[in-house]
């Protein structure tokens, strides 16, 4: 039995660099640059080297990757689906 290892919550207070985000999501930097270009995730910082992503970006990047892979949609299509899913989620909450 090994000692417990502490985990870090990746919430909106966490700041991840482009390299860290890519490594956590197992995607290339090029893909993340394209995802940012679609406005799917919005890093702080102007230049690519200064980009900082919140922990929430991980879930969005992974969702886009899965939507692309499993439905064969392109990036703008995945972005649209993600926006509609967010909207649906908001509506479902409102109705309760």
């Amino acid at each position: 039995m090994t000692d417990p290892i502490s985990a870090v919550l990746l919430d909106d207070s966490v700041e991840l660099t482009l390299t860290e985000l890519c490594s956590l999501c197992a995607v290339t930097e090029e893909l993340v640059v394209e995802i940012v270009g679609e406005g799917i995730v919005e890093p702080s910082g102007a230049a690519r080297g200064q980009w900082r992503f919140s922990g929430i970006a991980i879930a969005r990047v992974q969702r886009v990757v899965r939507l692309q892979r499993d439905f064969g949609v392109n990036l703008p299509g995945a972005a649209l689906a993600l926006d509609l899913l967010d909207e649906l989620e908001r509506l479902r909450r409102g109705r309760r």
Partner: protein
Amino acid sequence: MEYKDYYQVMGVGRDASAEDIKRAYRRLARKYHPDVSKEPNAEERFKEIGEAYEVLRDPEKRAAYDALGARRSGEEFRPPPDWQFEQAGNAAAGAHSDFFEQLFGGLGARGGFRGRGFDTAGQVELTVEEAYRGTERRVALEHLVADEHGRLKPTTRELTVRIPPGAVDGQHIRVAAQGQPGIGGGPAGDLLLTVRLAPHPWFRTEGRDVYLDLPVAPWEAALGDTVRVPTLGGRVDLKLPKGAQTDRHLRLKGRGLPGSPPGDQFVVLKVVVPPPQNAEEEALYRQLAGARPFNPRAGMENAP
């Protein structure tokens, strides 16, 4: 091991064309994909569909599968003694049924990664209470490790992860340097786990906010009594507003899941009417009805 009828899973006939199969897959994926679906068991169904598609879309695998003959799903099954299926390259490592592993999971058919996002090893399910207090979890990790012949074999390793308070549903947590061991002595990657919060009998969560339906008696709501309310941090006294109605939301600031800022707890009132159990209680209701004219349907006067 149980036989799996992949044609039945996909809802197509055994003579379906490649085009039919692709169409069926896309339709089922839209219905059951865990990213877009609210169907119960979506994740399980999607895995099953993915596995069926992986076999039926690939002419070599499909031909080998067809050669087994049609059987009933769930029927006891052993692969023929002379069974051999080898395919270079791109087969998937990931969550597959025993049936699939036995037939297609053998030599040479490993290597690629698909379905990493839904890898169950990367998920931890917590109760809402555990998310509130923080907790520890044993996590079993599957690594692909090269054996003496250089083939990649899955091996399992367990570790205990301490999860800090305040994890919310769908959130990721990072465990430094506990991911896949590096290639050629390189540093191990970070382990990324997705948190799922199990449904709770009373508490629902939305992000860090917690919702609780609170049953109240009509007189408690009418008179604005003080009632005891369960929260994740323990019971608190809550004074109801006089004349409070069902579905009224009352906010307990900062009583949700911890964080900066912490979430709130929303108490949603549900007025419960006790049915009269004897003539005396019925008379009390009559007396109340006579005391003041009250028409809860006043706004519906003009309805048909």
